[in-house]
């Protein structure tokens, strides 16, 4: 184990190096670029024995990884924003073939207008694609999640591709100390590549051909079932990882000071750190509030939310993306989860903020969470939905 000061992007590059996928294919896009630049450097210097396919587009980046994964190789790609949208067609294609692979998504606002700052719009746009969707809070978790992603993806109970998100610049280009596990240990823990079938010419196999409605539905239903079993696998992998490498995060969600909390703030990504800081201040002021941070958006941690939110007085959800004409995507899923037990429904509020990279501070969180708690305490109906704008 070594400790290095790494940007979030380089933390992912190092994770990939430890895993050593046979094939890497990627196309540059801000703010993802430094992941593949670092990997190219590692490959060219002989530090990493992977084949780098320098493709001409993101569509081809994922397509090439898909081909490599079908052919029995571990494969990795990384992208952002427009690049992710450009490859979106293939994103769906990969999961429906049940082929394990890993992609890093360094979040950046979907354009137009041109904007390179982060929100979760690109990541959330992949919601229905059948990928396991994880999101890190800091650079260490970016590294750990990337390694875990390969293990989860290749678990026979899952056999689905995994995307790992981090915010561009906020994590992507910000340096933090990161512990890099021992390479041998990572390889040993991952074991040899596992996948449901291999296309290697040894016996005829057809993948993705014309299929009648009932059989197609079978395939889709299988993805839904595997998403459910993935919940157990994600938790098991996180526990195993904790035993092997000393860090464990809690599975699908991270519960921060929420065990005894009356109120819950729900979030995902780097700004959860600011939210936790706000919660610490509010705790000092006597507010019994905690944070439930989503580490995984798909499968959606319905059970965790029912458990924690179901026994709280109020839940405020911070979304860094918006479904125009509705509300934040996490909120929508959370309400759907809690509505399973309507008798225990807490007071609810959704705040969409930080859109297009607008900076949200811990003071902003403190103000918003406090306002929410106070309105519930006073017996008022809290703001149900608000797009919090700083001007």
């Amino acid at each position, binding site marked *: 184990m070594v400790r290095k000061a790494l940007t979030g992007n380089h933390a992912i590059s190092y994770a990939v190096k430890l895993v050593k996928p*046979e*094939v890497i*294919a990627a196309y540059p896009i801000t703010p993802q670029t430094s992941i593949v630049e670092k990997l190219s450097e590692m490959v060219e210097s002989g530090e990493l024995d*992977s*084949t780098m*396919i*320098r*493709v*001409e*587009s993101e*569509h*081809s*980046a994922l*397509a*090439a*990884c*898909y*081909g*490599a*994964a*079908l*052919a*029995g*190789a571990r*494969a990795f790609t990384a992208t952002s924003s427009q690049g992710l949208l450009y490859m979106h*067609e*293939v994103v769906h*294609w990969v999961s429906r073939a049940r082929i394990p692979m890993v992609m890093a998504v360094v979040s950046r606002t979907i354009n137009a207008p041109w904007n390179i700052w982060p929100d979760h719009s690109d990541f959330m746009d992949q919601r229905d694609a059948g990928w396991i969707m994880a999101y890190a809070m800091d650079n260490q978790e970016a590294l750990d999640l990337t390694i875990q992603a390969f293990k989860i993806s290749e678990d026979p109970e899952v056999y689905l591709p995994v995307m790992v998100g981090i915010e561009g610049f906020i994590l992507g280009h910000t340096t933090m100390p990161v512990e890099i596990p021992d390479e041998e240990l990572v390889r040993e823990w991952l074991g040899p590549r596992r996948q449901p079938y291999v*296309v*290697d*010419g*040894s*016996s*005829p*196999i*057809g*993948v*993705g*051909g*014309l*299929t*009648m409605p009932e*059989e197609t539905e079978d395939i889709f239903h299988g993805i839904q079932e595997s998403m459910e079993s993935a919940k157990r696998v994600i938790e098991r992998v996180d526990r195993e990882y904790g035993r092997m490498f000393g860090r464990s995060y809690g599975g699908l969600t991270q519960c921060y000071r929420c065990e005894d909390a009356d109120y819950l703030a729900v979030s995902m990504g780097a700004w959860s750190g600011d939210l936790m800081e706000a919660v610490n201040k509010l705790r000092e002021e006597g507010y019994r509030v905690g944070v439930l941070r989503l580490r995984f958006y798909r499968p959606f941690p319905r059970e965790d939310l029912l458990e924690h939110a179901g026994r709280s007085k109020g839940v405020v959800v911070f979304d860094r993306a918006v479904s125009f004409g509705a509300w934040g995507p996490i909120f929508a899923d959370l309400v759907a989860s809690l509505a399973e037990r309507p008798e225990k429904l807490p007071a609810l509020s959704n705040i969409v903020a930080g859109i297009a990279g607008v900076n949200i501070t811990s003071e902003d969180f403190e103000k918003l969470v406090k306002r929410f708690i106070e309105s519930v305490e006073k017996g008022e109906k809290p703001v149900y939905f608000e797009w919090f704008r700083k001007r």
Partner: protein
Amino acid sequence: MAQARPKPPIPYDMRDSFLPGDAACSGCPIPMGWKVVRAALGEKTVFVIPACCSSVVVGVYPGQSLNSSIVHVPFAAAPSVASGIAEAYEKRGLRDVNVVVWAGDGGTADIGMASLSGAAERNNNIIYIMYDNEAYMNTGIQRSSSTPRGAWTTTTPVSGKTEQKKDVAKIMIAHDVPYVATASVAYPHDFYSKLQKARSIRGFKFIQLHAPCPVGWRFEPQYTVKVARLAVETGLWILYEYQGRRLTLSGPSRPYLDPSKRKPVEEYIRMQGRFRNIPPEALEDIKRSVELNWEWVKKLI
């Protein structure tokens, strides 16, 4: 003129490579092409097929009529998926599996052009076969950039296509890949030997296979081979190989270097309903492009 090469033997068991249960129209050139590909490249062949007639022709899950591995991929993705497969085999030390892209002209000349160019430039170890039926036949006969001038399609329904056919083989030659060839379903021996050649070369190989479509070109299904042969005999479709910056005219096309040996282009045109309303200037344009193509060939042989 060089002596005609002896015809290579096409294995008699090539029927076993194509099984019953395909969904091809009568007279479809696709199974004709597949039989030759499979005979030439053998069992250890992986076909990467983007959206095109072949995605349907091969049959419906759980069966498939092509006795090989098939990876069906999104429309523009075939060259890049094939690149990934080829690189993975390379890394895994699997050297005896042929990776073949089998794509139509829409998937090649239009929506797949960027990824084709990318794979060619990277010189990935694949054989790319563009079966050229000169329109989007799978969606019901719409024009492609490979549709010839003057041809009726459902998106050029009144006056026929006003633009000329895009020459993809020349675009591939400009990429300076190790092997580019043209072929025709009417000349399976020629196609077979080109596939064998392609198989022996490492890197990116491109073969454009002329594949007349009875439904889309409006001729009776028993005439597929006849139409394909006429394209060569009129000099309109020239069979050649391009390798090491040199062009070699293939046996069936050699006589037509001499313009007097060529049949009139009208013979080819008149067999096809798609040219029923061809404007005279479009016909002249096609004839002119035949001449220009031969001029180009002469410069390179």
